[in-house]
Structures are given as structure tokens and as C-alpha cells.
């Protein structure tokens, strides 16, 4: 479904990532693993169109999206949930969800799906987004992204800043989404959590893909175990 090939991107002429090849198939969950500063966010921003790629291509369902502006990529079916969430703080939770469907009016079915996934959001729908707790804001960010009925959902560090218990709940919700058939691309520093949801993963190091394989392979890989799983 998503094919990223030879992608290079960065800031002020400096390349942060280079030669990135990533593939995500329909219905799959894929993890991008890497330490802080490895280039995960740069990769996601380049796919989402928030950052112009310097080289390479981004193709979704055989449609070339390279160098399209972010709003076109969003409308083409890629929903990106950044780590900073970028919610609309002075609007109600419900308005945030409604805007997720822009430029369409939200359909009841999708709204119910989001509320089923996160019952907490239903309880708080009249509350201003800026007054929600970190975990609730993360749920809202995912909910807003789902309102567009995306083909692919990209999540950058969905558990950053969340208490371990809430991070666990967040990942259970992702499991639920996967069962519904959603295609996922997840960047995560908490490698065990990421590998528990994903079928496959890529290890990003210093802006390049260092390793790739199934979650089981990565889980057993001595380098991955040493670097990310805290096993000597």
C-alpha cells in the first residue's frame, strides 16, 4: 500500500535521513524503531508532506504523493498523528473530531467507532481540548486522525509522556484498530510495546535503515536486544 523508496530529507540543506526504503502492506502493522534523534520524526514528516523530501518517492496505492503539500496527502488517505499532537486547544473535543473529517461533514458511523474505541472521549466531548490530560489528548489525536477514514495511520511516539498503565491502554486500542483492518505505521522508542503490535519492523539508526525483519526476528536479534531491549 505504502511504498517509500530512496527517501532523503532534512532541514536547511542538511540531510537527517537518507536512502530510506520502507514498505507497508494493506492491513499490516509496521514499527519503525530507533533511538532519539535517529530520524523517525523526520521520516514521518517527509511522508506526511510537512517536510519536502530532497530525494526519493512516496507512493500510496500506486499514486505518487512525493512533494505534495500536507493537506493533499491527508486527503489522499494518510493520517499522521505527530508526537506533539497538534490539537486545536481552544475548541471542544467534539469540534476537534469534526474537523478530522474536513472537508467532509463527519459521518455518525465513524464518530461512533472512535467513541467505541475510546469511551473516555465520549464522556468528555464538550470539554476544551486544551484542558484534557495527556492520555486523553493522545486518544483525541488518534480519534481525530481516524475521522478522515484514512487508508494508513501513522503514529509518532504514541506513548511519549504517558504513564505506563495508560501507554498499555493506548497499545490495546491500537490492537483493536488492527483487528478492524486498519493499516498502521508506528514509530516508538518503547520497543517491546511496538514489536508486540507490529508484524514487521525497521531499525533506523543515524538516518538510515540498519535492519529490517519480522517482529520475532528483531526480538531475537542480539543487536536489537542490546540496543533497545536492555538485554546485555
Amino acid at each position, binding site marked *: 500500500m505504502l511504498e517509500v523508496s530512496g527517501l532523503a530529507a532534512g532541514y536547511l540543506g542538511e540531510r537527517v535521513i537518507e536512502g530510506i526504503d520502507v514498505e507497508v502492506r494493506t492491513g499490516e502493522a509496521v514499527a519503525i524503531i530507533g533511538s532519539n534523534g535517529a530520524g523517525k520524526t523526520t521520516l514521518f514528516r517527509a511522508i*506526511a*508532506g*510537512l517536510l519536502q523530501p530532497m530525494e526519493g518517492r512516496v507512493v500510496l496505492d500506486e499514486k505518487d504523493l512525493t512533494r505534495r*503539500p*500536507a*493537506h*493533499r496527502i*491527508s*486527503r489522499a488517505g494518510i*493520517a*499522521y498523528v*505527530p508526537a506533539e*499532537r*497538534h*490539537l*486545536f*486547544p*481552544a*475548541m471542544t473535543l467534539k*469540534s476537534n473530531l*469534526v*474537523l*478530522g*473529517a*474536513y*472537508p467532509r*461533514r463527519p459521518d455518525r458511523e465513524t464518530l461512533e467507532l472512535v467513541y467505541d474505541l475510546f469511551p473516555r472521549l465520549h464522556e468528555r466531548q464538550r470539554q476544551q481540548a486544551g484542558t484534557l490530560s495527556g492520555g486523553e489528548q493522545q486518544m483525541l489525536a488518534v480519534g*481525530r*486522525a481516524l*475521522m*478522515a477514514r484514512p487508508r494508513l495511520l501513522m503514529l509518532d511516539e504514541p506513548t511519549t509522556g504517558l504513564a505506563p498503565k495508560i501507554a498499555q491502554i493506548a497499545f490495546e486500542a491500537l490492537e483493536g484498530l488492527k483487528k478492524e483492518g486498519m493499516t498502521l505505521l508506528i514509530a516508538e522508542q518503547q520497543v517491546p510495546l511496538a514489536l508486540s503490535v507490529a508484524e514487521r519492523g525497521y531499525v533506523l539508526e543515524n538516518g538510515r535503515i540498519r535492519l529490517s525483519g519480522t517482529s520475532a526476528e528483531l526480538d531475537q536479534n542480539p543487536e536489537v536486544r542490546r540496543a533497545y531491549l536492555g538485554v546485555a
Partner: protein
Amino acid sequence: MKAVVLDGIVLGLAFGLLGVGMTLVYGLGGVLNLAYGQIVILGAIVVMVVMEDGVATFLAAVLGVLAAAGVAVLLDLTLMRPVYRQHGEERTLLGLLLTLGAAFVIGGLLTWRYPAGALYINVSGEPVSIIGVPMAVGSLWASVIALAVAAVLLLFFGLTTFGRGVRSIIQDETGARLVGINPAFVRTVIFALSGALAGIVAITQSMSGPLTVNAGFELTTFALIVTVVGGLGSVAGAFLAGVLLGVVNSLSAHYIGQYITTIILLGAAALTILIRPRGLLGR
């Protein structure tokens, strides 16, 4: 006292209408359009010229509003493009410089071509008594138009999908792009709306007295004050600030003297920046 307050409210609604076009553009991208007053004047001169050719007042007014909106769109598509490519302070600064330049060019051309240009729309009729105070028909009509515009804008931004989109850009531009909103397109539409509002200001201002070709910078100054006091990007804030400032203006003109009013209004703006930098209803 009643008459002074009522005068202040009428003046304040005019202030609100003047400020709302500037505050929307500012809220959406951090650009203070210093050519705003000159766009008002351009609208007024178009109405004047067309009326001199014998076109009916209402049709002339519509043409004036369209002309002001057209010039605004032209500015957005040319001058403002490099401005929106910048971010933060650089955008603000470049926006100030370029719109100031546009103000001089538009104002200069109009003054050169129509040195004695002035628009006065005579609304005939006996003064109407409001709670015992006789009010001129022209300024009452101006107030009605201002209130109608406020109502339409509030409904538009509150209820429509596009209106929500505009508010979302004001709150988080990256978030807006991620949900599929094109900020450049929305900014062009809002710039056009702001121009149309400037055209409406030209009409309402000339209903209570002649609007002269050199009034541009004065109008911009008042619009700036309303923007600062009302809070950026807030329609309700602009009208609330307008009415408050209008009443303050009337009271100080009546009890102290006309000479002091501009200083007091500027003082109100300065005080707002010190006490409540985001304005009355700004985010």
C-alpha cells in the same frame, strides 16, 4: 449622558466593523495589514467615481465592495506570497514592511489621481428618536449594517465547516494541515473577505459624513487599536472592543475634549498589551 453613550455605541460599532477585517487576517497568519485603511479608501473612491457616472447608489456600493475585495485578493496573490513563506518574527516584520509599502502606493496613486476625492452618501430622513435621543438616520443605518455583518460573521465562523477550518488554522496551523486544510487557500479567501469588509467600511463611514481620500492611515490606526484590544482573530472581540472604545471615545470627547480622544484610545491599546496581551477575547 444618555446621548453621549448612544453616540459612543454608534461610533463603536463602526470601530468594530473597521477592526474585524484586520483582526481576521492577523489571527490567521500574524500579518498586520497596514494597507487596510487605503483599501477602504480605494473602495470609497470607486463608489464615488461610479456614482458620478450616474450609477444608482446601491449598485455603486456593491461595485465598491467588489473592487476592495479584488484588490485584497491581488495583494494576497502577489505581495503576501513571500511573506507567508517566512515564519515567526520574520513573517511579521516582512508583512509590516510590504503592507506599509502597499499603503503608500495605493494611497499615493489615489491622492494623485483624485486630490479632492471624497465619498459622502447622503441618507435622507428626519432624525429618529432612540430612548429619547434624536439620532441621524445615516449613522443608524451604519450601525444596523455593522450589526448585520457581525451576526453573519459569527454564524459563518461558528456553524460552517469552512469557518471551523479558519478557526483551526488560528489555533494550530500544522494540525489544520494534517486534517486536510489548505492554509494558503483559506488565507486568500479571508483576505478577500477582509477586503470586502473594508469596502463595507467605506460605505458605512461615508453615511455619517464625507470620507476623504487622505483618511487611510487614520482608519488603519483605529483598526489596529481595535485589533489589539479585541484579541487577534476574534470577531466577537473586535466588536466588543469597538463598542467599549467607542463609548470611551465619546465620554472623553464630551467631558475632556475632542483633542484627547486619540491619545486615550492609544492608551487603551497600550494598557491592553501590558495587562492582557491576548486582548479581550483573544486566545
